């Protein structure tokens, strides 16, 4: 095993180009477990800790450019307003110690369906900025996950940042685990209201081979909200609509039975989380509308 310690991003790209099998290591929260337990013996480890740029973020007009190694703790503490769904998801990641090291780049690189960031990124809408010596490209989050623990990266590419749309409405994230802290998701659900486009986006974790959106559910809800004039009248969403949305979210799952939970539990729990997060976000949207109207 060789340990590569590039001092700059350019050096890192060059190293990855030269050694496409090199495994990038940043927070170490996935890679080191595999090494400690003899599950993996990569030829090269590519340390990204010395590239300071990866731990920085910029808040722009419409989106946040989040460096791949910004630790979850920083996201929780600093980006609650801009990225509320991702901030909530960050707070559910493992333990304080892990949140101090791990970042979104690791979740994306591993692309495990259980990664906590995925549902929030899917719901918010995001693009993954990847780069190689050949150049830079941005991969839409919907096209990023290609299979179980597989993503759209080419062998010579590294994840540099994620561009996440700033919240234009309430966002929520829920995750079920069989413990009240420090737990891998049995399943998870992210939901974002986008009042500007009058759309709703979702993200489901750990209930299909990859993180997925519940697109049929989104389309149903978008239509139902439009038809009922809900975005304008701010009325409470009809229980039958919420139930139909929840059922469609359950139907979007393609889960398995494993030691963490049964497939039928996952499907059931996603439905419950979908209904609850819709209620919470919609209540928040209605509250915001009232506040704005009251102020005006």
């Amino acid at each position, binding site marked *: 095993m060789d*340990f590569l310690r590039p001092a700059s991003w350019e050096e890192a790209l060059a190293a990855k180009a030269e050694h496409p099998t090199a495994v990038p290591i940043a927070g170490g929260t996935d890679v*080191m*477990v595999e*090494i400690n337990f003899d599950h993996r*013996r990569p030829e090269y480890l590519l340390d990204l800790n010395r590239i300071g740029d990866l731990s920085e973020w910029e808040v722009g007009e419409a989106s946040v450019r989040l460096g791949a190694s910004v630790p979850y703790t920083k996201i929780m503490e600093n980006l609650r307003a801009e990225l509320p769904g991702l901030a909530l998801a960050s707070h559910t990641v*493992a*333990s304080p*110690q892990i949140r101090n090291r791990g970042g979104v780049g690791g979740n994306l690189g591993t692309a495990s369906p259980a990664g906590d960031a995925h549902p929030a990124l899917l719901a918010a809408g995001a693009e993954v900025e990847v780069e190689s010596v050949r150049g830079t490209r941005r991969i839409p989050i919907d096209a990023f996950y290609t299979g179980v623990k597989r993503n759209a990266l080419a062998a010579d590419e590294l994840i540099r940042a994620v561009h996440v749309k700033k919240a234009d409405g309430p966002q929520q994230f829920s995750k079920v685990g069989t413990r009240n*802290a420090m737990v891998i998701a049995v399943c998870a659900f992210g939901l974002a209201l986008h009042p500007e486009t009058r759309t709703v986006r979702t993200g489901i974790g750990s209930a299909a081979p990859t993180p997925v959106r519940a697109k049929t559910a989104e389309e149903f809800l978008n239509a139902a909200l439009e038809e009922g004039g809900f975005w304008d009248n701010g009325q409470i969403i009809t229980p039958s609509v919420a139930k139909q949305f929840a059922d469609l979210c359950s139907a979007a799952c393609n889960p398995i039975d494993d030691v963490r939970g049964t497939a039928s539990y996952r499907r059931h729990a996603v439905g419950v989380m979908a209904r609850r997060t819709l209620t919470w976000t919609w209540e928040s949207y209605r509250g915001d509308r009232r506040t704005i109207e009251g102020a005006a």
Partner: protein
Amino acid sequence: MRVNFKVNGRQQEADDVWEGESLLYVLRERLGLPGSKNACEQGECGSCTVRLDGVPVCSCLVAAGQVEGRDIVTVEGLADFARQRSESGCASGACGTSLQDAQDWQAKGTDSQTGEGTELSAIQQAFIDAGAVQCGFCTPGLLVAADEMLERNPNPSDADIREALSGNLCRCTGYEKIMDAVRLAAARQSEAV
């Protein structure tokens, strides 16, 4: 490979490090600092918690090569670290530890066999006094995590304590005496101010 870094204020050099070794292994097996514990080696138990440039992390998940040029505090250096923090006028916490501060302090040598007369940090003394130590295997990691929490949040609520320590498993105590110890350390620190 060779790794140079600072541990408890002293410059250290580890040679012939296998590239897959963790910081935890280097501390325990190469530097003679076995205080950080090897309970799960998968980031689930917090027993190996150290501060890396001031930030609590699981040392089992830090590759040895990643600490080149960086600064580590382990349980062995905790008493000196806390003393120097308090001497620099930050005993009440809320000021955190800057990277500069973290790199500027020096650990005092101790070679105690019985522990009698050892100067302890507030959190260490509170763990003894409150009965928070049984087998003691989780203790070093808990101490590093709890000390850092009290530095940030000198008056934590019970829920704050539980949240801050949720990454540190203990199998002996049922956590009640650990809660008592952190409350005690917080109370003693606020009295001392």
